[in-house]
């Protein structure tokens, strides 16, 4: 019995032996996904001659899975040894089936890795996106206006039930948080003004500043910010989830207008309630300020409200309330538009909800500045 020829390459996973009918590649161990990197290195170390016939022996294999089989075939294929030319021995029936399956699918072309966008492309892409977004919100505003005109002509279309549900959701349930926030803001403003006024012994003038600041700017802004974060986000998330679930399409397919059913009740409820919420915020803020005045500035509530009546004009309060329906309109339009723009995936709902809150707060502050500039004209 002659000694077998020494292996020319050996490894934990495979070895190459020169045999009488060309080279024999013997596989060992677990040819599985977990060992894929080691398998690649082991194969790369073997000096396989692509010109000679090759026998692949799987008798000593512990395990073979599709990733392992694919690596073997891909490596040999890369060397120029096509699968049909291989002689296979020692594989079980399942191993043979697996090799043939993988080899059959291997011939298909591979996917190219995803190309990154270049700088110029990125700019173009963003410009296009802003353009699309602008066009889309303008279209949405137009459609909402059209739906509203239709509602005025045919009041029967009005969805009273949804409207009252929204009144409760955006109005009644927001009252505690709006009052609390405004009350705290009243306290802070009275403190700040009080510190200055005390220096000049002009404590009672705190009333002038507080009255003006709260009713004209702070209460409307705070209320709008709270509503944007609370109801705006809720509108977008609700409508967005309905969109994902194809409920909006279902409404349309029933011959109903999603604008009549979903958008207008929310929009009208918000426009109606924003001034009322702001009025509540006015009262809470002034109460907060009055409390600080009486506890720290020696201005009794009686004096405070007497003074308030003298210096706070109805025009100022009305001006503060007047701009809130415009805030509400902006918030509701942005929120509903974002809800309707949700794509059919989960991530999109989150992105759109974030966009609603950010955009509505920006819109509210922009509108507020416009009103501040236009004040002399208006009053």
């Amino acid at each position, binding site marked *: 019995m002659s000694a077998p020829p020494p292996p020319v390459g050996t490894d934990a996973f495979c070895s190459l032996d020169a045999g009488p009918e060309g080279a024999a590649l013997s596989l060992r161990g677990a040819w599985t996904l*977990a060992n894929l990197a080691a398998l690649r290195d082991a194969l790369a170390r073997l000096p396989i001659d692509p010109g000679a016939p090759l026998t692949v022996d799987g008798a000593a294999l512990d395990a073979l899975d599709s990733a392992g089989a*694919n690596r073997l075939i891909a490596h040999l294929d890369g060397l120029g040894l096509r699968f049909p030319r291989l002689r296979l021995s020692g594989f079980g029936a399942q191993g043979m089936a697996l090799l043939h399956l993988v080899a059959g699918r291997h011939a298909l072309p591979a996917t190219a890795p995803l190309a990154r966008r270049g700088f110029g492309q990125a700019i173009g892409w963003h410009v296009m996106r802003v353009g699309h977004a602008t066009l889309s919100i303008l279209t949405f505003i137009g459609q909402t206006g059209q739906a509203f005109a239709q509602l005025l002509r045919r009041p029967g279309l009005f969805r009273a039930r949804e409207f009252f549900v929204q009144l409760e959701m955006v109005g009644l349930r927001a009252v505690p948080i709006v009052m609390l926030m405004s009350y705290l803001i009243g306290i802070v403003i009275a403190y700040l003004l009080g510190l200055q006024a005390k220096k000049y012994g002009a404590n009672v003038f705190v009333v002038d500043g507080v009255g003006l600041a709260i009713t004209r700017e702070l209460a409307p802004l705070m209320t709008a910010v709270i509503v944007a974060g609370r109801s705006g986000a809720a509108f977008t998330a609700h409508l967005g989830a309905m969109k994902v679930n194809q409920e909006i399409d279902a409404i349309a397919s029933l011959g109903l207008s999603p604008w009549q059913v979903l958008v207008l009740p929310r929009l009208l409820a918000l426009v109606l309630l924003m001034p009322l919420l702001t009025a509540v915020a006015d009262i809470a803020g002034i109460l907060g300020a009055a409390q600080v005045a009486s506890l720290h500035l020696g201005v009794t509530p009686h004096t405070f409200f007497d003074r308030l009546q003298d210096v706070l004009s109805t025009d100022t309060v009305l001006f503060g309330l007047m701009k809130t329906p415009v805030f509400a309109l902006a918030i509701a339009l942005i929120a509903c538009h974002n809800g309707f723009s949700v794509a059919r995936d989960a991530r999109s709902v989150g992105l759109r909800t974030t966009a609603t809150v950010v955009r509505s707060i920006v819109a509210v502050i922009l509108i507020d500045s416009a009103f501040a500039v236009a004040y002399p004209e208006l009053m």
Partner: protein
Amino acid sequence: MSDRPIVEATNVRTRLGGRWVHDGVSFALRRGEITALIGGSGTGKTVLLRELVGLERPTEGRVSLFGEDLASISGQRLNALRRRFGLLFQDGALFSAMSVAENVAAPVVEHLSLPDDLLCEVVNLKLNLVGLPLDAARRRPSELSGGMRKRAALARALALEPELLFLDEPTSGLDPLGAREFDHTLRVLVDSLGLTVLLTTHDLDTLYDLVDRVIVLHEGKVIGDGPLKEVARSQHEWIRSYFDTRMTG
């Protein structure tokens, strides 16, 4: 090792919404079998599947996977077991924020650290195995048709080379041609990868084409268990009407 059942449910009882959905369900799956779980809507097929993979717990009874009792093993051990089986959800449950290729790569990236080129090779292989056109790889799941979503989900379920596959309604929502094609793909994969499969289905053609064994759930109990031909011959009223309605059609 081959004689021990890899999935075993022993006297499983589940109470949901004030009613016993499963009232003593027992069966065992042996290696290499394709088993279908059938039953009317609301008989708790999906719930049973979720219990078998450890997403839910039965109210009473024992469920074991690969010989380990799910009720008594640690979360870490359960996660190790989870690498050994794949699960195909009814609607695919592909991650919507990722492309199809990233979805298939996700389990591999989480559990193994492969260099990029090998990862790409594995993803391509799985997409090829399930017969997904390669231009689909870069697309988001929301841009695919129902059939392609199922295939992508199957590719993800196969990503970690599982021994065991759970499929919840694999052919629902597919057209008959697409469903047969999917069945064929599954058959080829099962035979050559040596998989054990448990699937729930309402699709009789799947039963005839694909399945080695049928388990029938009815009113919380197993009323039939065996090869399709045997089960179809059963005299049980529900089984008879189930097969009659379709066979005459």
